[in-house]
């Protein structure tokens, strides 16, 4: 393992951040979810965005409404979420910057053309947003003309073959080797030492899971080192709510079936996050 | 705090409904309290009308007219609302007569002033101010007794 590889916590550092287009600083979308290629060394392949990525993460009625509304207005037989290949990502900071010319989402283009563009003084030039024909950033979903509404309820949305979504790993119940409940997945640790993407950058590999003893939602970044527990009152409160937080390496995980995570080793043998 | 925020629209509706209508009076005491509140609202409206008449030289025409119109509107809605509450017993009838006599007098007085103002100014401002002062203090005494 490369000692200097960048380490990120998916939920804390990547999910829900703003995606910015490098070439003109245009705000494109949020990192609504991440596409993962499973296997022995799973790694992140793409940023997913739009209602079809956010909806499943929201869950419940709002999520259902969001995905179904989106499908209603989509032209393709099997709409997938808006997708930006990870090889385009140039920087992960307070925002995620992407190179190339990923297109705007369908709703923006439709509104520009049919509503805002028709009001005098909009002075927009939608042509600037025309996609450049690069192989990796033409998601099927943006290919159709969104203004052509075909009011048919779509089949269940399908991701690309052989991929899963990182959002699905969060909030899962974790069981120990003998089936007892050990905790809840709170975050996914990513290390940038995966396979090369587009021959320049290494992919973010899923290195392991952060597991909180108690189910209490997000960690808000307070799982990190003690220097980052400020303001102390808030830090103490959040850490108390979650109980102990431990870290399971990917090879300590036996299976990921049935919306549960089963560990191959007992809770006591997992590393504490203080060592990270 | 999250469920609270989800309840906000519901709470708004409840609150709007609560404040939009006058609830029925349960007993004599409750009725008297309502009468006191009514008198209090009327005092406020009469005072604003009085201020406009007393300081008429310091105000622009449209402004004074707006404030007077509001005073008339407030008084008439106060009358309508309280008049619609059923007095629970005979003894409450007396309270009702007393407060409505005052508020209705206030309404007609201020409405009168508004008409004069729109025509060619208040005819006898000093008398009007005295009259409004008297009304306000009577209403205020009544409110003081029934709180």
């Amino acid at each position: 393992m490369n000692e200097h590889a960048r380490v990120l916590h998916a939920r804390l550092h990547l999910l829900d951040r703003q995606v910015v287009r490098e070439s003109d600083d245009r705000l494109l979308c949020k990192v609504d979810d991440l596409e993962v290629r499973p296997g022995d060394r799973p790694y992140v392949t793409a940023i997913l965005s739009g209602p079809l990525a956010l909806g499943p993460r929201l869950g419940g009625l709002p999520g259902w409404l969001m995905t179904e509304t989106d499908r209603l207005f989509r032209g393709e037989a099997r709409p997938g979420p808006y997708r930006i290949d990870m090889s385009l990502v140039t920087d992960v900071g307070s925002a995620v910057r992407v190179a190339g010319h990923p297109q705007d989402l369908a709703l923006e283009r439709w509104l520009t053309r049919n509503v805002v563009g028709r009001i005098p003084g909009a002075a927009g030039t939608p042509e600037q947003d025309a996609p450049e024909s690069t192989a990796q950033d033409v998601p099927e979903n943006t290919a159709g003309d969104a203004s052509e509404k075909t009011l048919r309820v779509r089949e269940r949305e399908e991701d690309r073959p052989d991929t899963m979504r990182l959002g699905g790993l969060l909030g899962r119940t974790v069981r120990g080797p003998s089936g007892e409940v050990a905790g809840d997945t709170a975050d996914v640790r990513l290390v940038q030492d995966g396979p090369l993407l587009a021959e320049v950058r290494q992919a973010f590999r899923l290195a392991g899971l952060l597991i909180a003893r108690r189910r209490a939602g997000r960690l808000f970044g307070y799982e990190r080192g003690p220097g980052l527990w400020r303001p102390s009152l808030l830090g103490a409160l959040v850490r108390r709510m979650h109980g102990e937080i431990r870290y399971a390496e990917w090879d300590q995980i036996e299976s990921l079936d049935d919306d549960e995570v089963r560990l191959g080793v007992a809770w006591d043998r997992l590393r504490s996050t203080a060592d990270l | 705090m999250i469920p609270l925020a989800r309840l906000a629209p519901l709470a708004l509706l409840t609150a709007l409904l609560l404040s939009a209508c006058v609830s029925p009076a349960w007993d004599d005491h409750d009725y008297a309290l309502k009468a006191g509140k009514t008198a209090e609202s009327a005092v406020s409206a009469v005072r604003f009308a009085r201020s406009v008449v007393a300081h008429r030289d310091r105000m622009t025409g449209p402004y004074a007219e707006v404030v007077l119109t509001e005073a008339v509107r407030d008084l008439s809605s106060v009358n309508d609302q309280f008049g619609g509450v059923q007095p629970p017993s005979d003894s409450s009838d007396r309270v009702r007569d007393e407060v409505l006599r005052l508020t209705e007098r206030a309404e007609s007085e201020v409405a009168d002033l508004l008409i004069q103002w729109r025509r060619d100014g208040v005819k006898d401002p000093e008398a009007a101010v005295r009259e409004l002062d008297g009304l306000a203090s009577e209403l205020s005494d009544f409110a003081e007794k029934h709180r």
Partner: protein
Amino acid sequence: MKRLLAVTLGILTAFGGFVDIGDLVANAVVGSRFGMSLAWVVIVGIVGICVFAEMSGRIAAVSQRPVFDLVRERMGPRAGLVNLGASFFINVLTLAAEIGGSALALELVTGINYLLWVPPVALVAWLVMWRVKFETMERVFGLAGLALVVFIVALWQLGPDWGELTTQLVRPPQDEGVPTYLYYAIALLGGAMTPYEVFFFSSGGVEEKWTRKDLVTARANVFVGFPLGGVLSLAIAACAATVFMPVEAEPGSLGQMVLPVAEGLGKVGLGVVILGVFAATFGATLETALSSGYSLSQYFGWQWGKYVVPGRAARFHVTVLASVIVATALILTTIDPIKVTEYSLVFSAAALPLTYLPVLMIANDPDYMGAKVNGRFSNVLGSFYMVLLLVVALAAIPLMIATKAGQ
């Protein structure tokens, strides 16, 4: 020299833009009923908005991320959506109140019913947001809002019993119940710390392309401009306490609220104060309408802002237009704008922790802030306010129901 001018201009803008219909209504009503006995709440509110606006301005300058980005990023999509729903609802309610306020100000000048003024006000506001540059827009209405300084002059002209006003500071009137007192305390706090103020302040920082170098400007705006705005709030309350409280009059309309200025300064003062009220409410109309666009766009990651032409931020401008239309329709139902304001203040108070918690977290995150993380002082104050806001949020709605909205 040029820098000094910019800083001064920024301060004056923050000063003039601080008071909106909420502050106006809350302070006038509270002054007439409780005298100066709730002045401490205004001060608590000003310190609070300073602490959190400074943090959000600093975050915007260092990382170019406005407040609702932080809400989504730190609270996650679900809690973020709840927050978005609450903030958006309050925003539209406040927007309706501000449009109503501008229309009422025009009624006071012309005598023409305010309902007739509502559609033109909304249309002009939208045109300004569609075409006028952000900086120009903010400056013009912020500076015109300075006309409200007449409240201070009027107070001095009315020659109040200063000793009486001072004793009121610590002695609440005996004939008001404790729940009512607390209810109005919450409304005042909601008025001073309205969430849209930080949405707008931080998004404005991004619109004006603040960098680390602009931290001085941001801090000057916050630490000088906002407290001056607070002084204005107190002057409004003191005017009401001087003129209305002794005669038991409770102002329930905009016309009645500016009466002390007319009594103190006559026609000229009246003209200036109505101009000030119009500028303040119209400016706040723009701020709240843009804030609804900001919050929705920043949650979903849409391109937002007036720094790109409207055609390049289509979803943002559609959101702004839609909220203006909804708010206009709400006011045209003849619902009383002052009542709408009173409700929106209390709902704002209930939603405060949702907005300020992520700001406090990110202001401590070195990944974002590098060396500009919160100092000890900001953290102690920030933590104190989080506890306070949590209590306020839990108490707001029950108190509203218990006191029948302060009757």
